[in-house]
């Protein structure tokens, strides 16, 4: 699992994973052609799916832009707030004790119920979907950052004490670097969530973007457009994940012996 999520898996593993995807696509193709025939099938085989996407390429390129803007803004806002909050929690345990339950409550709120409220408060447009993307990002990153900031070795913290380091020095030179892998683990979960959050918010909170396009397709019973939007949404979420993976690699680099290939 963890090996599959690193940036550069060994060549043979990459080949295996590619082969598995090709086999799945082939099975899907055969099954769809056998059981769901027709001109615009509601479950298209991959070959037809490609034509769906191609047919709506222009529309998708336009719809995707507001979604990307909302997802990235919400992601950055949510991630920044949660990292700052995690630092405050670790520095002032009383604040954490006071706010921890509220944070869990916030996480337990159903997003679908918040969106209409946000629309009433802020009107239709970017604000509701940015807030939803930020909320989707907030919890996994806070969780990762909190665990990470507490992951420094005890003796390293004692060394900082002996050196009479200021807490800000301990934070920037020890705690945050040790927390980075945990923060990135949270960011990797959060990036696709931010895309999905923005898309869902667009159902009712926006007149532009992939989400509202999905709603239009549903109301018009436009199956090919629905599928095309779904593909675009999945690609967007996957791109977000891969982008974080790349940034993680660039920021953290190599801290331990590289994993050897198992076979």
């Amino acid at each position, binding site marked *: 699992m963890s090996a599959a999520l690193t940036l550069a898996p060994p060549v043979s593993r990459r080949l295996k994973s590619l082969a598995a995807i090709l086999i799945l696509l082939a099975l899907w193709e055969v099954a769809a052609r056998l059981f769901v025939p027709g001109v615009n099938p509601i479950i298209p085989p991959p070959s037809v799916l490609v034509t769906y996407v191609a047919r709506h390429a222009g529309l998708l390129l336009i719809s995707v832009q507001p979604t990307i803007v909302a997802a990235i803004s919400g992601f950055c806002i949510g991630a920044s707030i949660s990292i700052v909050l995690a630092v405050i929690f670790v520095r002032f345990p009383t604040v954490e004790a006071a706010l921890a339950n509220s944070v869990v409550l916030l996480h337990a709120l159903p997003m679908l119920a918040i969106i209409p409220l946000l629309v009433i408060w802020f009107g239709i447009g970017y604000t509701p979907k940015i807030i939803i993307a930020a909320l989707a990002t907030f919890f996994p990153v806070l969780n990762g950052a909190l665990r990470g900031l507490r992951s420094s*070795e005890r*003796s*390293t913290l*004692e*060394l*900082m*004490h*002996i*050196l*009479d*380091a200021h807490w800000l*020095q301990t934070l920037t*030179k*020890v705690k945050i*670097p040790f927390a980075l892998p945990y923060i990135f683990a949270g960011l990797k979960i959060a990036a696709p969530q931010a895309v999905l959050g923005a898309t869902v918010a667009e159902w009712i909170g926006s007149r532009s973007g992939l989400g509202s396009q999905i709603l239009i397709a549903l109301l018009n019973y436009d199956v090919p457009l629905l599928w095309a939007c779904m593909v675009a949404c999945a690609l967007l979420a996957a791109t977000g994940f891969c982008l974080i993976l790349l940034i993680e690699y660039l920021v*953290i*680099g*190599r*801290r*331990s*012996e590289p994993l050897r290939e198992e076979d």
Partner: protein
Amino acid sequence: MSDVSIVLEGVSKTFVDGANRVHAVERVDLAIARGEFVALIGPSGCGKSTVLRMLGDLESPSTGSVTIDGVSPGEIRKRRQIGMVFQEANLLPWRSVYDNIALPLEIAGKSAVPGARSIDDLLELVGLKDFRDALPWQLSGGMRQRVAIARALVLNPKVLLLDEPFGALDEITRNRLNIDLLKIWTEVGITAVLVTHSISEAVLMSDRIFVMSPRPATITTTIPVTLPRPRTAQMQRAPEFFDLVARTGEALYRPFETEAA
């Protein structure tokens, strides 16, 4: 004993955990001369590390007083005159050897430490000149501890606290590092306190050995090590060395033997 560096007077330490009270250290008195190398030896978990941690201001005594150069460990710590080496090297894995040794300088602010050593000299001293840009994962366990020693010395501290620094290493590596550490100690001229549970290590390294009892730890015997300096690996095969090992062992195991009888 001309010039006294470290003094402990009637030092006791009790840890309170809810209703439990654990007496870790009981009435320890000792005085360590400037530039002396002493070893604290005792059964594991006896509280010898607690004594060392009080010197490093990582714990405070429940009763009694601890002074280094006439002031409290907290004061010495604020002057950044304590160097400590832990059992694990605890290097920062994203920093090179050079940058790990530079960490204390960064924290103190370079201008604030006129007595600071040059990192390149320290690399030479611990024999890691060719590894200055290596990352910790590329080093062996022994090399990592060498980096930790260099890091402990970079601010030119008054005392060097060694908490079983080579305890996790194999005996051959450990022996080599001990001899090298003695060379470094001679060159730097620093008061050193070593916590260990190896009798031969204590004899090889120190001027005096303080033998501690099982918990609550107190000093039962002080053994002056009469071996000449500089110490060499060969001395470990001399009859005088074996005699000292036997005497230390006798003092160390006495509490257990009377208990069994």
